[in-house]
């Protein structure tokens, strides 16, 4: 697992992609993390970003996805393609980006899960290209 180096340019590129595809579609917060639990990019409305403990969220999300992947293997699957939790007013979607990255999307009931899945899939190649080359 190689170290990740973020430059101002890569951060801006990733930020623009995420904002255009997700934040403008009504997503509250989108966090791009690596599978070790580091935060690469944190996009969203300012107040939402302050309210969320991004470091804890990243560590738990990375661990949760790793555990889910192991559960998949136990039942003979490579991985589960969808990891999504539904709350009363907030929902969270986890999407794999390339080999090592994870995109966490937090959104309300005004945004459909289908749209999120579609947009995350569209973003996947672009984001992986920026950080994994």
């Amino acid at each position, binding site marked *: *697992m*190689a*170290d*990740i*180096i*973020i*430059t*101002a340019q890569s*951060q801006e590129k990733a930020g623009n992609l995420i904002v255009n595809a997700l934040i403008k579609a009504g997503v509250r917060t989108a966090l791009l993390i*690596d*599978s*070790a*639990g*580091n935060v*690469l990019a944190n996009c969203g409305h300012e107040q939402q970003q302050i309210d969320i*403990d991004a*470091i*804890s969220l990243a*560590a*738990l999300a*990375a*661990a949760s996805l*790793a*555990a889910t992947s*192991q559960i998949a293997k136990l039942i003979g699957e490579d991985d589960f393609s969808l990891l999504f939790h539904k709350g009363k007013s907030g929902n969270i979607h986890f999407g794999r980006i390339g080999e090592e990255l994870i995109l966490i999307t937090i959104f309300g009931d005004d945004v459909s899960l289908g749209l999120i899945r579609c947009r995350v899939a569209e973003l996947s190649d672009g984001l992986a290209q920026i950080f994994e080359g």
Partner: protein
Amino acid sequence: MALIDLSKKEVHCKVVYYGPGRCGKTTNLLYIHKAMDEKDRGKMLTIDTKGDRTLFFDLLPLNLGKISGFDIRIQLYTVPGQVMYEATRRLVLKGVDGLVYVADPLMVRRERNIEGLEDLRRNLEKHNVKLENMPLVLQYNKRDLCDTPIPTLTVEQLEQDLNSQLKTVYYEAVATTGIGVFETLTEITKRTVRHVAEKHLLTKI
């Protein structure tokens, strides 16, 4: 795997406290959490069972000031020590940059200490990492028990069991009262940051 953010001038490293069950890994983190100023540390995250045993991991993020203009941010993790949680330990080790191996001095835990180190070696290999190539500090914890009638291992015995090949630095500690806790943390931080910095030729620290 370290994260180097050149735009914010930050280096993020992951340090994992490893060791057999009940050796005091979480106690180390709790002491650091209690002793450090709130502005220099984040929230401590713990996933434990009802019996206070770590189920998945503990996490404590720290800001350790600047080195050569870079803000050093360290995330301390612990693993569950019980033998049955090997798969969980392997997950937590993903992307590790530095390791503290905490050993238990109780005579009855002698085998567990040795097995734990072997378990660490095996789990690192599954991530294609060699233990010898990682920054590593040993901590011989619970040294206060040596003054009680409970049979304990001497430092020489621990050195022979755990450090005869690795030949890394060790610290004696009493994590409940903080003895040796910050010495261990300072040393592993220095070694980890140096390792990451040299790897990326950021600077010679």
